[in-house]
């Protein structure tokens, strides 16, 4: 049962990812990305990470992808144009991707005993404890500092978005100076 589910959803995931790259219309790519995100959530569930699966569906497939499709719709983005540059990038990019995939596949296939990862102390799976309990314990004890510092990361992302995206109510003086140069 596990194996069948895994194969089905891994197939969906790969298919979605490849379709994302092939499609030239942004909205089709965004929709394939949703397929990838949801299939990934199922894969997480199969690995026993219920919380991660739920977060994946809510945050990625839900919030982020909805925002993505909204933006694509609002901008009314059309089909991508094929240019010299994109063709060149394609001809270099595909072999490069194949090479990287080959290296990583070799590494993972050669790795021994990739069964259950040995986790260091704070992360060991104690029977009877749920995923969420474990995660929150680690997050608020061992990884407290990275967790808190993420707030600075989010803060500068907001700050940057405001600084870059807000329309400046340009005063005529300043813009005249710049244009007459």
């Amino acid at each position: 049962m596990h194996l069948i589910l895994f194969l089905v959803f891994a197939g969906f995931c790969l298919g979605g990812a490849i379709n994302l790259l092939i499609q030239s219309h942004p909205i089709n790519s965004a929709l394939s990305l949703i397929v990838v995100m949801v299939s990934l959530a199922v894969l997480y569930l199969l690995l026993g990470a219920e919380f991660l699966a739920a977060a994946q569906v809510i945050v990625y497939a839900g919030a982020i992808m909805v925002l993505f499709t909204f933006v694509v719709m609002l901008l009314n983005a059309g089909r991508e144009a094929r240019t010299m540059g994109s063709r060149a990038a394609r001809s270099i990019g595909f072999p490069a991707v194949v090479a990287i995939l080959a290296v990583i596949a070799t590494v993972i296939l050669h790795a021994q005993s990739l069964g259950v990862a040995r986790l260091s102390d704070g992360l060991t799976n104690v029977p009877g404890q749920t995923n969420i309990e474990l995660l929150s314990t680690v997050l608020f004890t061992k990884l407290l500092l990275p967790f808190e510092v993420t707030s600075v990361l989010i803060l500068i992302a907001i700050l940057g978005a405001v600084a870059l995206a807000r329309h400046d109510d340009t005063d005529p003086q300043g813009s005249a100076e710049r244009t007459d140069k």
Partner: protein
Amino acid sequence: MNPVPDIFRILPEVILTLTGVAVMLLDAALPPHWARRPLGWVAAIGTTLALWGSLGQLSLPEGTGFSGTIETSAFTVFFHVLICGVVLVALLLSLDTLPEDSHHQGEFYALMVFGAVGMCLLTGAVELLLVFIALEISSIATYVLAGYRKDTARGPEAAIKYFLLGSFATAFLLYGVALIFGATGTTQIYEIARLVPTAQNHSLILAGLGLMLVGILFKVSAAPFHVWTPDVYEGSPTPVVALMSTAPKAAAFALLLRVVYEMLPTLRSVWQPLLWVVAVLSMTVGNLAALRQQNVKRMLAYSSIAHAGYLLAAFAGLGNTGIAAASFYAAAYAAMNVGIFAVVTLVSGYDEKLPLIDDFRGLIYRSPLLGSLLIFFLVSLVGIPFTGGFFGKFYSFSAAVGGGAIWLAIIGLLNSGLAAAYYLRLALVAAQQPDAQKPVVPAHRVGIAVGAALLLAVAATLVLGIVPGDVLHAAEAAAYTLQAPSTETSAPANAVDLKMMMP
């Protein structure tokens, strides 16, 4: 278990974060028509306090805080002081050169300070998750700052290019971290160092190391991951280039030192040849491309790629010598590069009316102060004695020779000769008689803030060049603490004890 309160372990970062928040809130609270310039002073004072707080950390016993996620040692203090110093110079420079009417000045200062938080955390982090978050903080701050000249075509282009390529590189780093976690089951750097010699999945660790190196070498703009550098430097405001060509690079080099010397010293036979190749490529590609540039900022961008190569040469050095040489070079490079970009900002202005080398003709007659400072920093970049650049190169290449990489040192010396050609070309142009037909553009007035910035950069370059002893001792102390296992980790670092403990 830990006698030092955790908060002291992140004192500079806390001060910087509070400063950034204060700048942000004041910016929102001030009436819209008020000048935002005082906010720059707030940021500068906060950065100075953080620098002082960081020096205060020297009196703490060396060790880690927050359950082994962040370290304070001579190494972290060395890089904190370096980063805070560079950010301070960049802030003072922006104070005088940002146009009065430019938008989002408050956010500009806040982003610089928050960027410094990320860079400081990056140098102190001994937990790969924290490394990743710190790297993202410093990167996102620089991506935004790079796109600050929204009214030009090049500004947004630079920001988008930097953002896309930078995110791509960070993804490589993250993949590397994931593979190393897969092999060892932990992301704590000391733990990884302890587990790697006995880890079963050697190939996973090797792949992880390779992917992490790609991510870090992108951040220091070493060849072949350098393609973004000239375009981004050309499009970004020059005070921002002064910051991003030095402070984030110093932080990324600190991370590289930590990853190769502290986390994976046992894999020296793997990373050392890789870094050898990257060093040679960076020097050669950077210098050859810089020779052909007409734009001053593009030329300096390629020169910074070459300097990343000289610094990487120090990684051929064994243990403490290599770390000390690399740290010293990072300090010397930061001092002279932030200085020369300060001069370029003052000459060509925030709007960059004078971007070409030819526009610098006769600078020494137009503005004797700026002209002589430009020549001084160029001389230091060439690596002529009595400047920081000389001792930086000297220690770096002697570390390489000490590590047995004689060819690397020879290639480095040949490259330094090649580099002298384009540095001296700019210096000669600046010293030539001005072109009589060209209208004279007055150079920027040197105010108090920017004067202090230039003074700091000149003083640092001179001190590093004439009395390098103190800084070298600091770098050696830093090197010592990076290699020594922290006293607070219960795990012994050497493999012999480990075998006795294992059943």
